[in-house]
């Protein structure tokens, strides 16, 4: 009877459990999770803060998930080291858990630069349920917040704080917010909407120092920006980014770059050791190489592929790419692949922009194949475009129709429709 051990029980870990159980109903499965109740939707922690979701809604699998899948769930326990020769995991409490197949699904941790005053009361990172609960508890008394980092996590927590009535200043080091997934036009549209909602956006700046309150030095009272300007606040949220939690494999045979390197079967360089999710560097089909892609859908897909392979059913990871969808500040956005290429002249770029409806659509093509998709407000046909992109379809014949309002499956040449889609 096979013995599977999984460290980390979020998107990747849960999907691996489901895949293993699909193939092998009898092997023993143990998950080790630092978080007490790990089966929640991490992206929903902002909704918990805003009040849109309660804990019950956040559960992405029900409370009986582990029992139903006959999994030994060691929750509230941290794995501290690995012995890959004798095949066991050492827990913080000293216990050892032996394995035949191991999955590392430890995800990421927030990156926190050295900032003077970062130890003060009221400074938060924002990546887990406990952060959201602690933050929520402080909001009754808080009026002003500074969010450091205008990426996806920063924008999501900003919206939640605005909904709770706080005045938020968002500080971004780049010259625009969401710079990794939007171009200048799209970023400006979002920034406008955020400013209408009352957010102050400061770009090209960072926080160099966190100040205390005059009456209480240990509590946050404000920040000093790199230009010397002071902003008063009661809360600072550091949302600069996440880095892979690779510490468990350091000093072992498992090869890492920035994340753990995996092949298309989610195998690491050590036998019987797999990795998936934010901790792994898996294949990106746009770049044609392995990259960090810290995204929930990819963590689930990678976890599923790992689970199948661990249980003996061969499955190949098709590859992923940057793919974000955003719902914040009332504007639906989908951004896939290369939407803002560094050398735009090497690409063909199609755009259409209707400022009154705030509809903006952009496709980036290379050799008549789609390599980037950016859609604001009119997003419902995104999946059809993504399918063309994944299949590297030559779109030359219907290029102009791609951005039209009634683009759809009927736009595709019949022969293409028949090869891409079994039906319709």
């Amino acid at each position, binding site marked *: 009877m096979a013995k599977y051990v999984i460290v980390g029980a979020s998107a990747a870990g849960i*999907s691996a459990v489901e895949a293993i159980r699909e193939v092998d109903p009898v092997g023993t499965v143990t998950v080790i999770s630092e978080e007490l109740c790990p089966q929640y*939707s991490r*992206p*929903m922690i902002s*909704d918990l803060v805003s009040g*849109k*979701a309660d804990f019950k*809604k*956040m*559960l*992405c*699998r029900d409370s009986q998930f582990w029992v139903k899948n006959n999994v030994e769930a060691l929750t509230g326990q941290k794995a501290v080291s690995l012995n890959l020769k004798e095949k066991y995991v050492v827990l913080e409490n000293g216990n050892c858990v032996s394995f035949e197949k191991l999955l590392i699904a430890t995800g990421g941790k927030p990156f926190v630069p050295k900032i003077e005053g970062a130890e003060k009361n009221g400074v938060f990172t924002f990546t887990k349920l406990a952060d959201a609960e602690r933050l929520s508890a402080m909001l009754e008394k808080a009026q002003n917040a500074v969010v450091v980092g205008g990426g996806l996590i920063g924008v999501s927590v900003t919206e939640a704080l605005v909904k709770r009535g706080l005045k938020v200043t968002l500080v971004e080091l780049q010259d625009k917010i969401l710079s990794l997934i939007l171009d200048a036009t799209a970023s400006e549209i979002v920034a406008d909407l955020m400013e209408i909602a009352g957010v102050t956006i400061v770009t090209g700046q960072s926080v160099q120092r966190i100040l205390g309150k005059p009456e209480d030095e240990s509590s946050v009272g404000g920040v000093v920006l790199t230009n010397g300007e002071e902003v008063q606040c009661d809360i600072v949220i550091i949302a600069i980014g996440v880095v892979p939690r690779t510490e468990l494999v350091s000093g072992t045979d498992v090869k890492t770059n920035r994340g753990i390197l995996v092949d298309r079967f989610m195998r690491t360089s050590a036998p019987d050791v797999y990795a998936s999710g934010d901790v792994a560097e898996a294949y990106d089909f746009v770049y044609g190489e392995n990259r960090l892609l810290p995204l*929930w*859908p990819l963590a*689930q*897909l990678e976890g*599923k592929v790992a689970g199948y392979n661990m249980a003996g059913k061969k499955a190949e990871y098709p590859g992923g790419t940057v*793919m974000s*969808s*955003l*719902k914040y500040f009332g504007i*639906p956005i*989908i951004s*896939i692949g290369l939407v803002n290429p560094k050398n735009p002249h090497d690409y063909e770029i199609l755009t259409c922009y209707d400022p009154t409806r705030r509809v903006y659509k952009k496709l980036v093509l290379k050799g008549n194949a789609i390599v980037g998709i950016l859609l604001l407000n009119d*997003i*419902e*046909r*995104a*999946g*059809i475009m*993504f*399918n063309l992109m994944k299949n590297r379809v030559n779109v030359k014949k219907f290029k102009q129709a791609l951005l039209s309002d*009634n683009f*759809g*499956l*009927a*736009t595709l040449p*019949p022969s293409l429709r028949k090869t*891409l*889609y079994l*039906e*319709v």
Partner: protein
Amino acid sequence: MKRIVAKEEFCIGCGLCEVYCTVQHSQSKDIIKAYNRENPRPISRVRREVNKPVSFAVQCKHCEDAPCVVACLSGAMKRDESTGLVLHDAEKCMGCWTCIMVCPYGAIKMDASSKVVSKCDFCFGLEMPACVANCPNGALVLMEVKP
């Protein structure tokens, strides 16, 4: 397992599938009330596509290995074990639009509130989905497909 199949050659592009889907998923289930009185007006989960001379109806295919289920951020999009259908739980949905991004058919829409998504539920509980039952030209049919 039964699935809805579109017969392109019989579709006349009349759009009755959209009308009956809207009514079926309205609160009143009454065509006049659904279109004139309900606010927000319910949406159709089937989409008529016309690109003359071609027309056909598109709705969720309840895919094997459904990309929307693998991608869902909240666990709202799930395969129903007993029927094999891909069903959406609006209570759980966080409206993140991730499923819209990955559905190769473009079969998922924002619902009328624009807070969650909506898609074909095979008229769960009905013997015959409303679009199939009301297509005047047999362009939507139920077919047995292997599970």
